[in-house]
């Protein structure tokens, strides 16, 4: 019996050839990042490794997983192990061994969806892995729309979306859907006006700027709300998101609610066509536009504006108060939201005196039923971690931690997942 050791960047693999049966390999001892994990021998049949189903194979789900692993290895330039010493078949054995090893020793949770909460979810994944090394969370920020698509197709364990899911979308998921609000964010008017440290924008001004009817910074509609401020005679350079985004959705939803004109001419969507301005790709694109041009204004997530040191305008809310964006005003908005049964709600035009006007939850999408009990347990524990300890990371990353009543309701919803 010959034993060979192969070093790969993902860990050590021992492949052993069974002398009598030429094409059967036993692969064991697979570890991540060099840490050996207690071995659990399993037989790997080459026929299964390339995707033909066989009742003997428990761990290899499908061809795609193995292929994607191989592709990823090539992509990152991970060399195949000592080609000279190994027979071609053993490459398959290694691919499968990796798969078998990782799925045997750690519970993998895969998620995909919105880009906005991605830094937070990924942080949860890393931190939770420290607490519970048996669970690995892999969250891909592919966008809310793609997240819903992947979730509906059943290729991920959980999805995530800034726009939750509509009833028609939910109806397409046979396993049922539970929406869990996971964190929240504010959208701010970031501006670049040298010499103006504090800016108030009335509801009329907000809509007017994006409709193109207010074109100069010293327009009476802006000046009225800023007594004493030296507003320059500069044209307003409007910046917007050119890519489809939940940020645009929430932003246009609010402006449509406060301005009839805006609702008629532009409307609400993940990508809309503004009559003025320049499109930047992503939050970072809009941030760059605002940073570089004196006279620019753009809507970005609070976290981005804060991280990049952009000036943020105070916005007029429904009760006529000018509210600066921040954790407190955002929390106030969220606390005043009355969550419905399905937990899907947008504070479109919050009413409270201290509420910041443009804020939104972002949701995790879970199935109502999971077939794999171990997966269900890991997922529930992970989400619970996110709703409790995980909220502690929210503010440093620029999100608004969920108020306690919301967490309670989210936990109750989580309990219904089976």
């Amino acid at each position, binding site marked *: 019996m010959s034993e060979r050791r192969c070093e790969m960047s993902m860990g050590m693999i021992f492949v052993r050839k069974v002398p009598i049966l030429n094409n059967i390999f036993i692969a064991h001892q697979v570890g991540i990042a060099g840490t050996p994990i207690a071995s659990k021998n399993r037989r790997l049949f080459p026929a299964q490794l390339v995707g033909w189903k066989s009742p003997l194979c428990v761990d290899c789900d499908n061809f795609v997983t193995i292929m994607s692993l191989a592709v990823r290895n090539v992509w990152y330039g991970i060399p195949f192990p000592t080609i000279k010493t190994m027979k071609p078949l053993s490459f398959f054995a290694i691919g499968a061994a990796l798969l078998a090893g990782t799925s045997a020793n750690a519970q993998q949770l895969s998620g995909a969806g919105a880009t906005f909460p991605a830094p937070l979810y990924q942080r949860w994944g890393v931190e939770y892995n420290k607490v519970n090394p048996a669970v690995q969370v892999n969250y891909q920020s592919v966008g809310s729309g793609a997240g819903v698509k992947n979730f509906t197709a059943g290729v991920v364990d959980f999805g995530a979306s800034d726009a939750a899911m509509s009833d028609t979308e939910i109806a397409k998921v046979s396993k049922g859907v539970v929406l869990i609000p996971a964190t929240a964010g504010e959208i701010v008017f970031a501006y670049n006006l040298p010499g103006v440290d504090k800016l108030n924008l009335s509801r009329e001004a907000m809509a007017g700027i994006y409709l193109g009817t207010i074109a100069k910074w010293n327009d009476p509609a802006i000046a009225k709300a800023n007594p004493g401020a030296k507003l320059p005679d500069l044209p307003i350079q409007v910046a917007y998101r050119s*890519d*489809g985004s939940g940020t645009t959705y929430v932003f246009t939803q609010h402006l449509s609610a406060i301005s009839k004109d805006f609702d008629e001419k532009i409307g609400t969507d993940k990508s809309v066509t503004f009559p003025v301005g320049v*499109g930047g790709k992503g939050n970072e694109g809009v941030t*760059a536009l605002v940073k570089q041009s004196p006279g620019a204004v753009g809507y970005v997530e609070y976290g981005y504006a804060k991280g990049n040191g952009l000036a943020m305008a105070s916005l007029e809310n429904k009760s006529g108060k000018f509210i600066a964006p921040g954790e407190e005003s955002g929390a106030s908005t969220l606390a005043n939201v009355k969550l419905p049964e399905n937990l899907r709600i947008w504070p479109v035009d919050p009413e409270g005196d201290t509420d910041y006007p443009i804020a939104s939850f972002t949701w995790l999408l879970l199935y109502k039923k999971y077939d794999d009990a171990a997966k269900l347990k890991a997922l529930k524990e992970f989400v619970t971690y996110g709703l409790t300890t995980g909220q502690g990371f929210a503010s440093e990353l620029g999100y608004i931690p969920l108020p306690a009543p919301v967490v309670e309701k989210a936990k109750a919803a989580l309990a219904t997942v089976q």
Partner: protein
Amino acid sequence: MGPDFFRVLCWVASAAAVATLGLIVYEIVSGAWPAIQKFGLGFLGSSSWVPNRENFGVFPFIVGTAVSSLIAILFAFPLGLAIAIFLSENFLALPVRQAIRFVVEMLAAIPSVVYGLWGIFVVIPLVKVFGTWAVANLGSIPIFSGPAYGNSMLTASIVLALMILPTMTAISRSALTAVPKTLREGAYALGATRWEAILGVILPTAAPGIVAATILALGRAMGETMAVAMLIGNSSRLSWSLLSPGGTLAGLLANQFGEAEGMQVSSLMYAALILVVITLFVNLVGEAVLRYTQKQTAGIR
């Protein structure tokens, strides 16, 4: 003797390449079908792209694609050709020329997104300074009418020009160095100066290669996505001014595909189909021009 495996392998490989192209086109057309049925050819001429009203037309993006790549060629052609001539003549010692050539060709290895970032931080401020000046002094000419934006057609075109420069230079240079030595020497023997030899003999002989270089560069400019999406301003408003934001087909796809739904997906597929057709058309024209000039210059080689 068994079957000729090498032959079979080659056969399979080339069939696979053709089949892939066929599949891609099929996939795009079938995805675009609802939009083709709904909008027909009006899609090409309509200039409103309003996803939330299900109103789609790509005229501004077709114009943007054409204008940005043509301006890029306008910048890159003289520059690239000049570099190619300089590198193929013996103005400098060979090692120095090799070093310059290496540096120019290295430009092709820089990722698109890096060009985009560089454009944001370097080109945009420069274009803004130029734009403010141009609007004040040349504002009466439509292509310089205000207001001047940093993210504009001009910015995208300048960065595109730089991105296609290595293609332009490398292929033109190899065409120029491929000109037979006897022709060069013949020209000098007849008393031609260096410039007369270059303009009268070497350039005409290398013309097919230079044309090929230009077409390839144009093709690259049309399909370029990331850097353009970062710099052009992604607006669907039509404007004569080069200092205004615009949009390209590739940029539109990159921007909106991720979050698109329903008819928007079909319309984006339709836009992709148009992009494929345009690039195919450019390549066909390129091929035709190449053949024609080859025929014309066949006598002098």
